[in-house]
């Protein structure tokens, strides 16, 4: 018997229901308003009164209306056919809904029950299995979609029977399992799972140790994301959050992408709907939409469903992770989700925390972020969810509760800067303000040095230092005027500009530049760092800008050309030629040290002295090491492989 109750109170979308039966926290119930059945969720129980949040408009509801409880929490239906669908926050298939306007109380089944999938068994009779183990496989678009032992199954099971290869509908029984007590359980291709519970059908969740390639240099080069890592992008409006997320979904090295459009503009979602089916996926050569699932709860859709939407997206991501896939989950924006929590907390008259948000907001956010991660499945395969959320800080103020709570939970921070956006330096991420904690993980450093280049992390730090120094001297130039500072300051400033223009800035709308492989990034970084390490001679500060503008332009042409193509090499030669014009050839380490000393003296009495001192020390060590390998490398750059590289490094260390 299902529990029923009657409405006794209504305040906006909070409804109070009196019931005699059993009710569970977060249980789903339906308000029977005439022909419309309005989905709601229990959020508080006080004695006989259940407080429910309605996922729809409550207009016209009356006291005394019957409410029926379902006995389960908010669940999603998992099975073949999720990919390339457009769902709302409650996993209704938006395309199946009739009419231009959303009708209250209209719910559509998320999957296609009539479609037949080609099934291939992966287990056999007598196999011992448990929740999450792969029973079989169907092909969904081009992804091998695993049919698993339902996550809700507790304990060990034996495969009693499994269907042969063939075509089946998702509701057909494809296997029968027996539990320890000998009870039989039928398994179809679909299963349900409550969205607010993490799916834990995996063996082990190690610290992320692999790099997640995004093709975007400000991420990969400066502040890399780890596979299974978490990050967030806060930024004021108009700073390019959404474009950046779209780029990520286009170029990142993921098997599939789940996008939760949470409380954002409808036209932006329409842009995804319109463009993604047309865009080519650079990784599979198919259409982007084939590996993308969109959970859309635009800002004008009911608030309570907004909260559900991020959980729905996360659960779908977890489902695909259990198949051994690399999932990229994007949520734009988590602030709207937090605001939805605030609205409900407010209506329930809870004592508010900072800015009116619920007290447990930090806990809710970190709990959500913790569901991402890299996992080893029971069969030793791996899967991952890399999660990047955006935050829309009120007034662009990063000290507000949502940003601060997210900062504690996410491991990477990508600060979008209004200033960079205003000067059209895209992507507008301020690499100095941003950080990636993964760069401190020894396992990540090892991975980078082994898989990309043994000098990679060194070069990255050098590029960052160059940017920092450039920023400092630019402030001085602005205060003292162009001719009020030594020429050396201008050179430092322009070296930073070189890094900025060639490495940081990336044209998301250019076919070639939009995505950059690690091989290419490593090559370009080395080139730019080498260029920055050189000394240059000028007579006049005006020459510095003009000269570097030329160098930057040639480097940029390299970025616009196919990697290693004739055109690319042509511009590379042009760069070399230009560099020779002004470069001061260094003869020995001694001279170089002197130069360092000198520049240090020049800068004395400046507050930034301390930092510089430290840098130049480490630089010296680096430079010595570089020298060893440089002469050899310049001869034949392309042939270098990491092995010989490593040996070289060892040698230099031995010395």
């Amino acid at each position, binding site marked *: 018997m299902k529990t029923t109750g009657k409405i*006794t*109170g*209504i*305040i*906006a979308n909070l409804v*109070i229901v009196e019931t005699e039966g059993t009710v569970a926290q977060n249980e789903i119930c339906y308000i029977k308003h005439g022909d419309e059945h309005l989905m709601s969720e229990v959020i508080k129980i006080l004695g006989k009164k259940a407080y429910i949040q309605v996922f729809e*408009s*409550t*207009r*016209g*509801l*009356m*006291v*005394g209306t019957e409410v029926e409880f379902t006995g389960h929490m908010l669940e999603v239906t998992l099975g073949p056919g999720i990919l390339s669908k*457009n769902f709302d926050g409650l996993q209704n298939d*938006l*395309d199946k*809904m009739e*009419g*231009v*306007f*959303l*009708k*209250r109380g209209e719910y559509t089944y998320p999957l296609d029950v009539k479609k037949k999938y080609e099934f291939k068994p992966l287990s056999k009779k007598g196999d011992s299995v448990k929740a999450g183990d792969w029973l079989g496989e169907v092909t969904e678009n081009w992804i091998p979609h695993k049919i698993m032992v339902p996550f809700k199954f507790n304990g060990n099971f034996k495969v009693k029977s499994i269907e042969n290869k063939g075509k089946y509908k998702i509701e057909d029984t494809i296997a029968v399992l027996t539990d320890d007590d000998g009870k039989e359980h039928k398994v179809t291709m679909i299963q349900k799972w409550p969205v607010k519970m993490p799916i834990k059908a995996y063996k082990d969740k190690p610290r992320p140790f692999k790099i997640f390639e995004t093709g975007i240099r400000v991420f990969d080069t400066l502040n890399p994301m780890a596979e299974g890592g978490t990050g967030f992008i806060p930024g*004021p*409006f*108009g700073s390019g959050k959404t474009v950046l997320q779209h780029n990520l979904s286009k170029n990142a090295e993921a098997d599939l992408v789940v996008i939760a459009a949470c*409380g954002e*503009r*409808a*036209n932006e*979602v*329409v*842009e995804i*709907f*319109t463009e993604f089916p047309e865009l080519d996926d650079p990784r599979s050569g198919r259409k982007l939409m084939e590996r993308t699932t969109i959970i*859309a709860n*635009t*800002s*004008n*859709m009911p*608030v309570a469903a907004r909260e559900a939407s991020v959980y729905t997206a996360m659960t779908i991501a977890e489902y695909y992770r259990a198949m051994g896939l690399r999932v990229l989950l994007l949520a734009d924006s988590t602030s*709207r989700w937090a*605001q*939805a929590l*605030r*609205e409900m907390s*407010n209506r329930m008259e809870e004592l*508010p925390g900072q*800015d*009116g948000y619920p007290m447990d907001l930090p806990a809710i956010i970190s709990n959500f972020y913790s569901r991402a991660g890299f996992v080893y499945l029971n069969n030793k395969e791996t899967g991952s969810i890399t999660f990047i959320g955006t935050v*829309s800080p*009120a*007034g*662009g*103020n990063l000290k507000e509760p949502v940003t601060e709570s997210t900062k504690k939970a996410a491991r990477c921070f990508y600060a979008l800067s209004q200033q960079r956006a*205003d000067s059209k330096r895209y992507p507008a991420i301020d690499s100095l303000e941003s950080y990636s904690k993964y760069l401190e993980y020894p396992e990540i450093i090892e991975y980078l040095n082994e898989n990309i280049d043994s000098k990679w992390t060194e070069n990255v730090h050098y590029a960052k230092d160059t940017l920092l120094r450039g920023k400092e001297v630019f402030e001085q130039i602005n205060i003292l*005027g*162009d001719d009020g500072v030594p020429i050396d300051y201008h050179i430092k400033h322009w070296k930073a500009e070189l890094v900025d223009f060639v490495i940081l800035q990336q044209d998301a709308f250019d076919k070639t530049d939009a995505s950059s492989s690690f091989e290419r990034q490593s090559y370009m970084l080395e080139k730019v760092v080498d260029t920055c390490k050189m000394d240059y001679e000028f007579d006049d500060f005006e020459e510095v800008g003009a000269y570097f503008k030329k160098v930057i332009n040639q480097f940029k042409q390299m970025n616009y050309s196919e990697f290693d193509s004739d055109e690319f090499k042509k511009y590379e030669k042009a760069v070399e030629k230009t560099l020779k014009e002004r470069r001061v050839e260094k003869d020995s380490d001694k001279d170089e040290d002197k130069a360092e000393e000198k520049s240090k003296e020049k800068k004395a009495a400046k507050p930034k002295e301390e930092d510089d001192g430290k840098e130049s020390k480490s630089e010296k060590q680096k430079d010595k090491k570089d020298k060893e390998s440089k002469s050899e490398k310049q001869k034949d750059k392309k042939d270098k492989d990491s092995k010989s590289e490593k040996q070289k490094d060892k040698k230099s260390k031995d010395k």
Partner: protein
Amino acid sequence: MEQDTKAFQRVYTKLFQLTKATVSLHATGVGNDELAIVDGRPAQVVKIMDDIVTLQVFQGTEGIATDAEVVFTGKAPTLKVGDDLTGRFFDAYGSPMEGSKEIMGKEIEIGAPSVNPVRRKQPSEFIATGIAGIDLNNSLVTGQKIPFFADPDQPFNQVMAMVALRAKADKIILAGMGLTNDDYLFFKNIFDNAGALDRIVGFINTTENPPVERLLVPDMALSAAEYFAMEKNEKVLVLLTDMTLYADALSIVSNRMDQIPSKDSMPGSLYSDLARLYEKAVQFPDGGSITIVAVTTLSGGDITHAIPDNTGYITEGQLFLRKDTDVGKVIIDPFRSLSRLKQLVIGKKTREDHPQVMNAAVRLYADAANAKTKLENGFDLTEYDERTLDFAKAYSEKLLAIDVNIEVEEMLEIAYQLFAKHFSHEEVGLRQEYVDKYWKEN
């Protein structure tokens, strides 16, 4: 407001609680959001607890006695829509102002459900306003929502009226919230003089009306817009002025309902409340569209205040007005203004070189701004700096000023003339193909 009492309507006469804005009584069979008439004043159900119903009285509760008559209408606020809406002005309840006759037409509930996002079309039609600061630099697109961020002393209502009259919209729907009577008459006269009354519908709450009534105005206007755009497939332009006063009314209500305020004493639901309205902007599949041009007045240019801040996250860009003292005219600020949807039309619906010319001009204008800062800080100007300053002045006067009224082609021509007068090809940096085709030496 006219209201005939019908047989099924329930009448109560015992109020047991009265506050500044609400009355409570014992009643049954009342629906949430239902409209009622309390002592002749319209009111709406905001809370039901057992048999206690709390009503928000839009005009305030002054003078209402505990034995006042309460009539429940059995429905949410509605609007009668039909062709004879056009050319007329209505109050916040959708009743004709100045005693003209009632609308004959079907009655629809205001605040209808939202459009299914998969049924929306991507906006793609350029709206020409003749103002180069908008058409050239921040082109508007049908189905877009964009506010003017303006200080109260700026002529935003004039600019908006101009935009409305020049845009080739089938209908212009004006939602006036807290308009001064002077501004109401200004709109009425300017539309009348332009002979555009047959395209206009107005829903007006002036400063003479109670502020809480304002909350109904945008819903009324947008419901009418939906009627014309959906059922008649018309291109509808909705003007919302001033959304800051609308938000102020929201905060008054939430305060009287004892809700905990969030930033800047605005209700925590401000984002959702504003988004619900702005997201009515839409391009329908059958050709009809709703475009929203709004005004958000700022206090002292502060865009971090909760109202402009939340608005910025919802709307597709914003337009800033600024007085350019060098030319003595009000201009559309090219730096702070942004139309997020312009990429959908510029260079596609307008001439191919539009995006490049736009960017080049703004970049040169930015160089001029840098030169100006140099000048102010007492540094010497280079010859290039001097030229950018001259260019900026002409650019501001001939293109950015709001009194400009020309076609896009002509805007582009003027831009080339200015380029040619002040700069070399290299300094402007346009693609060679466009230089060959369009650049004419003076």
